[in-house]
């Protein structure tokens, strides 16, 4: 149950990160857009990191 909960949260984070990144890149790739781009990448990275951990636990259990 906890794995499902954590997977949903992590997937949501990857989607949020992708939304931010795509929308920021859509308006430009300069210094003013940098904070948003960094945020998008960071959120995707966090979600992906968590998903990797979940897959590892899931693989160990099965």
């Amino acid at each position, binding site marked *: 149950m906890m794995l499902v909960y954590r997977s949903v*949260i992590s997937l*949501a984070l990857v989607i*949020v990160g992708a939304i931010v990144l795509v929308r920021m890149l859509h*308006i430009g790739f300069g210094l*003013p*857009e940098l904070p*948003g781009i960094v*945020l998008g990448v*960071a959120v995707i990275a966090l979600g992906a990191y968590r998903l990797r951990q979940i897959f590892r636990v899931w693989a160990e259990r099965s």
Partner: protein
Amino acid sequence: MPDQHQPELKRSVTPWGSFSWGYSDVGADIFVGLGLVLGAAAGASNVAFLFAGIVYVCIGLAYTELAATYPVAGGGQYFVMRGLGDFLGFIAGWAVLLDFTIDVTLFAWSCVDYLSEVIPYLLNPIHPWIHFIAVFGLIAGLCLLNVLGVRESTTFNGVVSALDVISETSILFFGFLFAFRPELLVHTMTTQWPSTFNLMLGASYAIISFVGLESISQAAQETQRPASIIPRTSIALILTILIYALAYSNLALGMVPWHQVPLDAMGHAQTLWQWLGNNDNNGKAVALLAKDVPYFGAIAALYVPILGAILLLISSNSGVFGSSRIAYAMANAKLLPSIFQRVNRRFRTPAISIIAFCAIAVIELIFAAWPSLDPGAAAFYAKFFHGEGGIGFLGDLYAFGAATSYSFVFLALIALRMNDPLSPRKFRIPLNIPMTYKGERVLFPVIGVLGFIGILSILVFTIITHDLGRIAGPAWLILGFIIFVVYRRNKGLPVFGSAPHDWRHEQIGILRDAGELELMDEYLARLKEREPAPVAEIG
């Protein structure tokens, strides 16, 4: 060390319990920090969070390494004492104690602010006495809960932390999906960039959004297999909190609100971030932001104030827990009188410490609430402290205590890497320079130096920008110094020097008590390589 008949703290905190102690403390900080930072750093709020966040990552890594290597209840205080001696250990511990007592008051205060969204009688600007009594009642209730035992609190923390992670992710998900305008973010950053003074003020407030990792190391003495669990929970915690703080600040600056933002006190139009950062709203900024997320805001308006209030209450609870545990550890190390070391035989909790530090939290509450309760005091605060009171006063002291103790923790990290290379480190901060020191191969931590420079700059920002913090913070340290000198003289112990410690013997005991038997064997083997005879004696 406690005598044989003295009851000790029980190891009842699980991995999720360890995470949730930290999350409920650090995770709640954004509920308070967001409004304060938006009010101070305006269009550069996300930059202030980023700067403080980078420093926080360094702090988090340092705590992770140290707490996994030395899993004892003292946390920062213990690391500094072990690395830099008794006196600096006391100063660091005393600064952490300031933070924990502020934690109790600040989060209880903000909890009532969030509740005022659903119970208007609790609004501080309109009913200051009711607000004051409610905060006081919460502190008294938490005091009682903690005297009764830790296990109940840990379960409670775990459930609410899980709900909060869902809630915060949902706010960000729907906020970025429906209301975020990248052009608005760029426009706000370009046109509303603050002065250097305000950026420094914002950065010093932003660090309070990341205070609380101490809770994990505080819980280390009560965590099962801490050397294995603490790195796992800490890194997850560091990344989660950092990303949430960055995401909230960017969303607040670049979001088009669902509802029209009310006019300011002068009748002028204001933006969302200005509204969230003003003095009436900065204590409940996340609830107001959530309410303005399109569609989702209709549901969020009903539950976010309550969930936020519960999380803040837990964070306040972490302050009660942390302050009593650090006082317990400091008394154990003969830095504070032994009365703080006493564990209640019935509940197995340090009841005297809990009651003492809750009383200090109430005193801080009185100082914070005074200007809103008495017009004379309001005039005095306005004249001498630029009207800083309430949540701003508490935030000042919080930033001061955190920056002071964390500065010493970085120095302790470096000193312990040099002087104690034999203790097994299951987690080590990356980016190290190998070198030889006193005949031993050691790894010099570059991140420790960078983190020290970062946190020292935040301490300087705090002293420059906070009128009350630069008086009340050092005053707290002077008070502690007086207590320390009187106590150590009475006990015939050195004031500036250190009492004799057998760290090697103690490290073996720490690892054995923590159930880290493999690490204990590894440590004994390393000792045996260097000094076979004395180690055989220890064994």
